[in-house]
């Protein structure tokens, strides 16, 4: 059922997206990379047969929480005001 090549590819992308979201300096980029990370996790859940969890991850993790992050980033400034 599991195709190990696909599994390996998605796992690598999960790691790359996670490290990328931490390393990138641009907050909007970090939010988008975190959305990509969530989507990869969703694919992993789907591969492992946990379809309900994959659905939740796709709607909450990749969908709404990315919008929440972007809404928060929208109110930040390049230089701190303090």
């Amino acid at each position: 059922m599991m195709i190990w090549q696909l599994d390996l590819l998605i796992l690598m992308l999960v790691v790359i997206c996670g490290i990328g979201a931490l390393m990138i300096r641009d907050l909007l980029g970090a939010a988008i990379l975190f959305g990509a990370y969530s989507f990869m996790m969703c694919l992993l859940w789907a591969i492992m047969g946990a379809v309900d969890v994959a659905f939740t991850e796709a709607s909450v993790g990749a969908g709404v929480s990315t919008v929440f992050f972007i809404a928060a980033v929208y109110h930040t400034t390049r230089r701190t005001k303090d």
Partner: protein
Amino acid sequence: MKILGLIIVVLVGAVLEYATIDFPPLGDPASPASTHVSPRYIEKSIEETAVPNVVTSVLADYRGFDTMFETTVIFSAGVACFLLLRVPPSRRPQRASERQYRHRLTGLTFRIKGGAEVSLPLHEFERVDSIWTPYDFIIEKVCRYLIPFIQLFGLYVIAHGHHSPGGGFQGGVILGASIILLSVSHNLRIALKRMGERTSALFSPVGVFIYAGTGALCLILGYNFLDYQALAALLPGGPIMARSHGIFIVEVGVGMAVMGTMVWIFKNLASLGRYDEGL
């Protein structure tokens, strides 16, 4: 300090990695997770609840308490965002009462300061945000035609959770996301017109109330809390179908709570609690 942190992270990662060696492989029939309680759910869930999707019957029936408090957690998240971010209208800074109107035909923008009331012919003027970019024709139209279908799909996910993946939580998020999409593709005020602050703030406690109320109703009818068999006295189809219907009622409650909370959090977050302009 950074190097110390890196060393700790790597060490903890190595320990976790070492700990996973003891784990049974994925899908092992002899693992503890799939020997004690799982076979009972898989074998008996259709007989006992008439729900083909075992995940839904476990979430909303066998483990109904967990899901009820998960819904409460979501509601608390919405209340926390509200209490942290919401600015009462009397304490909003003066800058926020500055409004900008754009003349549709000429593209000129007027700025009205200090909350003064001006009577403008509203079919010629439109209110715009302080950082305003012209609406993209394609984005506006595509979103406008897509949103009804997204909402229909959200309702389908809630109602069809008995038979397919999905349920109240996912459907509620999809319904909330459709309102958020309206706000992102047009502006916050149009979304507020469709679903106001009060509506979204009411939806979340009402959803939790439906869930807890169903449990309490079972208690009143002489059964245990959240034992949906009790609803057989009120719904047609006998005690087994009553459990299926009970799951559906509870899922609707979860969907309402999640939808309301998602829209509520987004509005508070996007407008910094001022509800005038935002993402």
